[in-house]
């Protein structure tokens, strides 16, 4: 072994420790960068050479710079993101449904229904009173506008959800495109473990996490460093360097609402994935939840409202037709008559209106015997207490409405619970990922000291080598 070998060993050591110091610096610099994974320098002893039959090392070399990464945790986080994205969307949309049903117990359709029936009681107290007759008409008008407003409000929630699909799908397309182009860069970089690739891998992970909040996905790492992204039900979203595209197509069979179409990577034939996205298990991420709000979550409230309006109109109309108005004529329909089945006409809550125009047409009398007859007014007032078969159960009209209000509350509550739970598992997973991949300043400072001392020692080695060389050269003179 020659003295110059010492220089060689010292040089490898200086270079390796310098790299380690640079990586430590990089870690410290990115201590608070979101999504940054801690990098570590893996060194290995240089190859052994035989010196006079004795094996001697040839210094140190940097074998790789690796990224601390846990794929299992990342997958878990993606799934938590999907739940959270879904529940948050549901919660926001259902909040507006709940808002429509009224947060106060002294206003809204329920209270107005009570006032309507109380107006009939007042009419029974004074069947000829024009003020009492007008009051019945006015309170009925309020009930009618309540129905119309609620119905159009609920329809509005659905069409808002439909509109927001445009923003969501274009956002998703954008991210799929970026993931595909990162895939291309990563596979070109060749070494998946190089410093440059590490930064790309971190950005791709970030994108995958963001994407998973918008649509439920699964991802699979390939040996060439690219990632294949699919829907949980199988359709491919990103394959190598090409991405699928979501597009929207109005469906006349579904009130002109959009169908979500997916054009797979390297294909030009769009497929309808609406039912996959909103089906069981797919009802996740912002996209799935938005579709669910539009097509299934708001629907029961609209149906309930239609059923309530149809029942109210049918019952009042039936009694009205058995009575006599102030002029002794048989009562005509009080509300516009529901066209479909007597107890449920789809869409009726948006069409319900008053059929009579004057208070004189209210049939308060049960017999055509005198205007002081209040028996029919009493019968109609008693509809307030009548248990009818509605919404698959038996309830009063007011009680059924109250149960709709409670349902809107329960829907919001369960979305809230889901959002809170998924948020806490996100927090938990982020802590676990942080624990594995995050930068600890104390640790980096310790490493800094270690590498600095090693660098100083390597420099010392070269100094000693120089002195040795001089000693040898001194022998010549």
């Amino acid at each position, binding site marked *: 072994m020659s003295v110059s070998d010492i220089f060689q060993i010292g040089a490898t050591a200086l270079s390796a420790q310098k790299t380690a110091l640079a990586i430590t610096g990089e870690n410290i610099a990115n201590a*608070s960068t979101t999504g940054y994974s801690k990098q570590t320098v893996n060194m290995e002893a240089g190859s052994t050479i035989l010196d006079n039959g004795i094996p001697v090392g040839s210094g140190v070399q940097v074998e790789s710079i690796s990224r601390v990464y846990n794929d299992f945790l990342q997958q878990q986080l993606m799934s938590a993101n999907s739940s959270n994205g879904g529940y948050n969307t549901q919660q926001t949309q259902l909040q507006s449904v709940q808002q429509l049903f009224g947060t106060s117990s002294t206003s809204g359709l329920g209270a107005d229904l009570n006032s309507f029936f109380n107006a009939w009681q007042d009419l029974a107290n004074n069947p000829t009173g024009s003020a009492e007759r007008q009051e019945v008409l006015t309170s009925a008008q309020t009930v009618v506008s309540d129905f119309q407003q609620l119905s159009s409000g609920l329809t509005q929630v659905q069409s808002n959800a439909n509109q927001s699909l445009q923003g969501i799908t274009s956002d998703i397309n954008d991210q799929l495109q970026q993931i595909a182009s990162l895939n291309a860069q990563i596979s070109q970089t060749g070494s998946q473990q190089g410093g440059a690739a590490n930064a790309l891998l971190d950005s791709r992970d970030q994108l995958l996490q963001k994407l998973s909040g918008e649509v439920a996905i699964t991802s699979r790492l390939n040996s060439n460093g690219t990632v294949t992204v699919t829907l949980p039900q199988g359709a491919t979203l990103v394959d190598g360097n090409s991405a699928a595209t979501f597009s929207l197509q109005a469906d006349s069979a579904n009130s002109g609402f959009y169908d979500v179409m997916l054009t797979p990577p390297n294909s030009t034939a769009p497929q309808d994935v609406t039912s996959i996205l909103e089906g069981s298990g797919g009802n996740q991420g912002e996209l799935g939840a938005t579709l669910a709000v539009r097509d299934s979550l708001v629907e029961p409230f609209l149906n309930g409202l239609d059923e309530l309006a149809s029942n109210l109109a049918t019952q009042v109309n039936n009694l009205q037709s058995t009575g006599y108005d102030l002029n002794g004529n048989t009562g005509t329909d009080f509300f516009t008559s529901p066209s479909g089945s007597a107890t449920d006409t789809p869409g009726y809550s948006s069409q319900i209106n008053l059929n009579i125009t004057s208070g004189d047409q209210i049939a308060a009398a049960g017999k055509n015997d005198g205007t002081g007859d209040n028996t029919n007014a009493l019968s109609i007032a008693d509809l307030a207490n009548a248990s009818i078969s509605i919404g698959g159960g038996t309830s009063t009209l007011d009680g059924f409405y109250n149960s709709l209000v409670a349902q809107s509350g329960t829907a919001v509550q369960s979305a809230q619970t889901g959002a809170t739970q998924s948020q806490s598992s996100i927090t938990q997973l982020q802590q676990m990922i942080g624990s594995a991949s995050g930068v600890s300043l104390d640790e980096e400072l*310790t490493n800094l000291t270690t590498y600095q001392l090693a660098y100083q020692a390597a420099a010392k080695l070269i100094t000693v080598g120089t002195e040795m060389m001089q000693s040898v050269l001194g022998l010549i003179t």
Partner: protein
Amino acid sequence: MRITENMTSAMVQSMLNQQQENINNLEQQASSGLRINEPSDDPASAQQVLNLQGLLAAANQYSTNIQTGTTWLSQTDSTMATMNNVLTSAKELATQMANSTYGASDRQNAAAQATQLRDEMISLGNNQAAGQYIFGGYAGSQPPFAADGTFSGTDDQVNIEVDQGSYVSINYPGGTLLRGGIPPGSSGTDVIGVLNNLITALTNNDVSGVSSTISGLDSSMSQLQAAQVDVGARENRLQNDANTLTSTQDYLTQAVSAKQDADYTQVLSDLSTQQTVYQATLAVSAKFSQLSLLDYMQ
């Protein structure tokens, strides 16, 4: 577990968020005074509150109905008392004039008096409460008795609802009361008819005719008194219903309050606990984030 600076700060942030949310919730309860501000706060209780509010609105309506009924019945009651006085005067007059010491001219004068009494009776039969003729039955908007005593009203009972499914009649049919049914005398004493007979007998100076009306006047009075007892009983019933209703209203108001009102003591003490916890978190995190290896390195 390996703990990094980012983890500590994320943890502190999430805890502070959570605590601020709790404080915000409690402050909302304290300022609105309500435990349930939205149905989602407690859907089951929210539904119960709405149902109770519905019952309360109905109870308030029944209370209004009872007031209307009380007005009608007390008006009917006092009218009947006056009618009774009229009959008493008529009987005094008849008793007096049945005595043979009075002459034809006395009876002529008495006939004028009796006519007055009959007219008063008819006018009492056209008494009103709240714009409605109380003895007219369903035909309550026109005077039920013509000047000659012909009854044009109906004998129907006007009912009001005083509680769910429970009705009280608030009128007394004028035909039954003053004409003994439709046609007159078909089911009781025809009071107006008896008075008319008295007038005729007095005008004709028919002493035996006058004295024969006395028994008719007696049965008229007992018919009126029986009616008055009936009306009085219904007044009592309404009074009892009103009392029951008042306690129902109190109960419902309390039940609504118990379901939806915030418990101030609880809310305020929770609020102060939460604030203490919040301050503690702030203090601990401030101390903790000062700790670093940097402090010990040259």
